[in-house]
C-alpha cells in the first residue's frame, strides 16, 4: 500500500512539544517532518516590525530536535512562514537559527531558502495590469496606499516547495506560506491526491489542536494513502474522534465546506470522517477544485505612529459611578491644552470591569464592578508626542475634580513606577488582497545552499 507518513511536531514552531510524543512519531517511520511557523493572528505589529512573535530560544529548542531527527533519518524537514510573519527579516532570523544549530551539532545538508516578501513596486505593476483584487470587506488597492506600506508578504502554495524538493533540498525554510503547503507539497510531488493532501495538511498544521483534549504544543501523525488519510495524536493522553477532526475544519475559517487555497479551493462537501481506531480518524472524499486563475493572498501593513500607554486602577465608588463623564472631561482637557500645537493623536481609555474586552459589542450596560482597570493609550506620529499625550492624560485624570469627590489626593492607583510605557511603532493591516500570477513560483525566489561540510 502506498503511504506517506508525515510527522507534525507542533502547531507553531517555538510552541514546543513533549519529546516522548516526538519519539513516538519517529517510531512510526515518517517520510517527512514539517511545521508551520506562522500566523497573522498576533496582529499587524510583527509583520511590520520584522520580528517574530515566538521566542528565539524556544524556536531553537524545537528546531534542534527536528533538524537532528530529520538528518539522522535522511528525511526532509520543511518549515513554512518562517519567523511567524514570513517576511525577509523573519526568514533571515530563522535561517540564522538553523545555521547556528548546524554548526553546533555538526550537521550537513542542502537547504533551500524560499522568499515570501513581495516588493510594493511589483504589486503596483500587477495592480496596473488589473491583477490585484480585494478580499471582502476591503476595497480596491490604490497606489497611494501601497506607497505607505511597510511590508507585504504573499502566501505561497505548494509549487515553490515542490521545486525545492525537485532540486534536492533536504531542509526547506520558506517565507509566508499557505499553512498546509509544507505538508502537502511532498505528497503532491509523489503523486498523491491534492485534495486529500491539502486537507491532511490543514489538520496537521495545527498539530494536536484537532485532537481531544486539544493542544497546540503536541505531536500529530498523518498517514496519507491513495484514497484517504488518517490522523493520530502521538500522545496517548489524546485521541482524535470524527467529531474533533470534523470540528477542526471550522477553526479560523469562514466556510467549512469550501476552503480557498492558492490555485484553487478545497471542497469538503463530500468529506467523511470515520473512526479508524479508538484514537485515529480516517478521512475520505476531500477534493481539490483547481481555479484557472492562480491567485496568491497578500498580507501587508503600514506604520501609523507610535504608542505610549499608562496602566492604572480605580477603586473609589464615586469615581466608578462617573467614569464615562470623567473620561470625556479628561479628553476635552487634553484637546484644549494642546490645541495651540495642533497635535494629531489618538487617545483611548480601555476600561476593564466595564467594557474593556468588547467595547462597542458589549451588551452589558450597567457595571457592578467594585474596581476598574484602565489603560490610557496615546498614539501619535512620533514616540515623544505619544509620551506627551499619554503623560498629560494620566496626570489630568489622576487629579481630576469630579462631583462628590472625597478622595482629593488622587484618583488612580498605579501598579508600576514608571506609570507610562512606550509600546513603540504601531502598524495596521492595509493589504489583504489576491494577486493573480501566471506562474505559482514567480513571486517566490529560491536559493539552494550547502549548510555544513559536504559529507560531514
Amino acid at each position, binding site marked *: 500500500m502506498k503511504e506517506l507518513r508525515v510527522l507534525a511536531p507542533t502547531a507553531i514552531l517555538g510552541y514546543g512539544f513533549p519529546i516522548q510524543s516526538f519519539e513516538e512519531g519517529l517510531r512510526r517511520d515518517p517520510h517527512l517532518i514539517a511545521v508551520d511557523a506562522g500566523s*497573522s*493572528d*498576533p*496582529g*499587524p*505589529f510583527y509583520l511590520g516590525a520584522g520580528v517574530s512573535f515566538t521566542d528565539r530560544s524556544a524556536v531553537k529548542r524545537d528546531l534542534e530536535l527536528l533538524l537532528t531527527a530529520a538528518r539522522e533519518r535522511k528525511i526532509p524537514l520543511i518549515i513554512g512562514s518562517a519567523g511567524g510573519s514570513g517576511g525577509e527579516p523573519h526568514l533571515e532570523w530563522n535561517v540564522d537559527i538553523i545555521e547556528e544549530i548546524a554548526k553546533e551539532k555538526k550537521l550537513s545538508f542542502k537547504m533551500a531558502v524560499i522568499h515570501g516578501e513581495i516588493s510594493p513596486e511589483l504589486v503596483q505593476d500587477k495592480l496596473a495590469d488589473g491583477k490585484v483584487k480585494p*478580499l*471582502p*470587506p*476591503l476595497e480596491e488597492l490604490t497606489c497611494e496606499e501601497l506607497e505607505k506600506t511597510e511590508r507585504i508578504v504573499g502566501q505561497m502554495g505548494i509549487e515553490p516547495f515542490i521545486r525545492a524538493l525537485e532540486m534536492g533540498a533536504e531542509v526547506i525554510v520558506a517565507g509566508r506560506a499557505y499553512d498546509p503547503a509544507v505538508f502537502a507539497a511532498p505528497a503532491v510531488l509523489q503523486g498523491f491526491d491534492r485534495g486529500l493532501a491539502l486537507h491532511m495538511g490543514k489538520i496537521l498544521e495545527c498539530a494536536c489542536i484537532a485532537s481531544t483534549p486539544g493542544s497546540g504544543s503536541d505531536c500529530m501523525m498523518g498517514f496519507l494513502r491513495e484514497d484517504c488519510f488518517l490522523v493520530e495524536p502521538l500522545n496517548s493522553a489524546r485521541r482524535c474522534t*470524527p*467529531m474533533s477532526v*470534523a*470540528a477542526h*475544519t*471550522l*477553526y*479560523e*475559517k*469562514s*466556510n*467549512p*465546506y469550501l476552503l480557498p487555497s492558492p490555485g484553487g479551493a478545497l471542497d469538503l462537501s463530500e*468529506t*467523511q*470522517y470515520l473512526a479508524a481506531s479508538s484514537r485515529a480518524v480516517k478521512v475520505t472524499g476531500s477534493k481539490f477544485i483547481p481555479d484557472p486563475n492562480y491567485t496568491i493572498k497578500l*498580507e501587508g501593513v503600514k506604520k*501609523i505612529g507610535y504608542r505610549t500607554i499608562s496602566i492604572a486602577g480605580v477603586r473609589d465608588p464615586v469615581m466608578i459611578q462617573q467614569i464615562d463623564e470623567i473620561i470625556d472631561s479628561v479628553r476635552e482637557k487634553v484637546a484644549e491644552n494642546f490645541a495651540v500645537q495642533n497635535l494629531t493623536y*489618538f487617545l*483611548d481609555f*480601555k476600561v476593564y470591569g466595564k467594557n*474593556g*474586552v*468588547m*467595547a*462597542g*459589542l458589549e*451588551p452589558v450596560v450597567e457595571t457592578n464592578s467594585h474596581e476598574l482597570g484602565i489603560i490610557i493609550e496615546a*498614539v501619535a506620529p512620533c514616540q515623544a508626542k505619544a509620551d506627551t499625550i499619554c503623560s498629560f492624560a494620566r496626570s489630568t485624570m489622576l487629579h481630576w475634580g469630579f462631583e462628590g469627590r472625597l478622595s482629593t489626593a488622587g484618583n488612580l492607583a498605579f501598579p508600576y513606577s514608571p506609570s507610562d510605557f512606550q509600546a513603540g511603532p*504601531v*502598524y*495596521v*493591516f492595509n493589504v*489583504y488582497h489576491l494577486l493573480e500570477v501566471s506562474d505559482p513560483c514567480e513571486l517566490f525566489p529560491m536559493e539552494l545552499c550547502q549548510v555544513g561540510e559536504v559529507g560531514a
Partner: protein
Amino acid sequence: MKLRDAADVIRSKNSGPYELTFDIIFKDSALFRKVVDSGVINRELFAKLYNLPLENVTAVICFSPANAIKATIVRPIPSGALGERDVYGAQQHVPLLDVEIPL
C-alpha cells in the same frame, strides 16, 4: 434552554484580520438538528447580538459533520487597528451564551 446548555463549544476567533467567526458545536446530533430546525440561529440574531447591519453578517452555515453552526461577521475594525480590544478575537462569543432556544 439556553445555548450554553445545548453546546459543548461556543467560541469566537479571527478568520483573517478582517473577519470574526463563531463556532457553536452541539452536544449531539439530535440537539443540533433541533436547534437548526428552530431557526433561532440566523443572520438576524447575529446582527442583533452584535449590533451590526445585516450585510455585515457574512454567513451562518450549518455543518453537520461536526454538529455545528458557524457564523462569520465583518470585524468592527480590522485586527490590531486603533481601538482594538481583542487582537485574536477569542473573547467575543459571550453574547451567544444566553441565547434562548425554544426546544
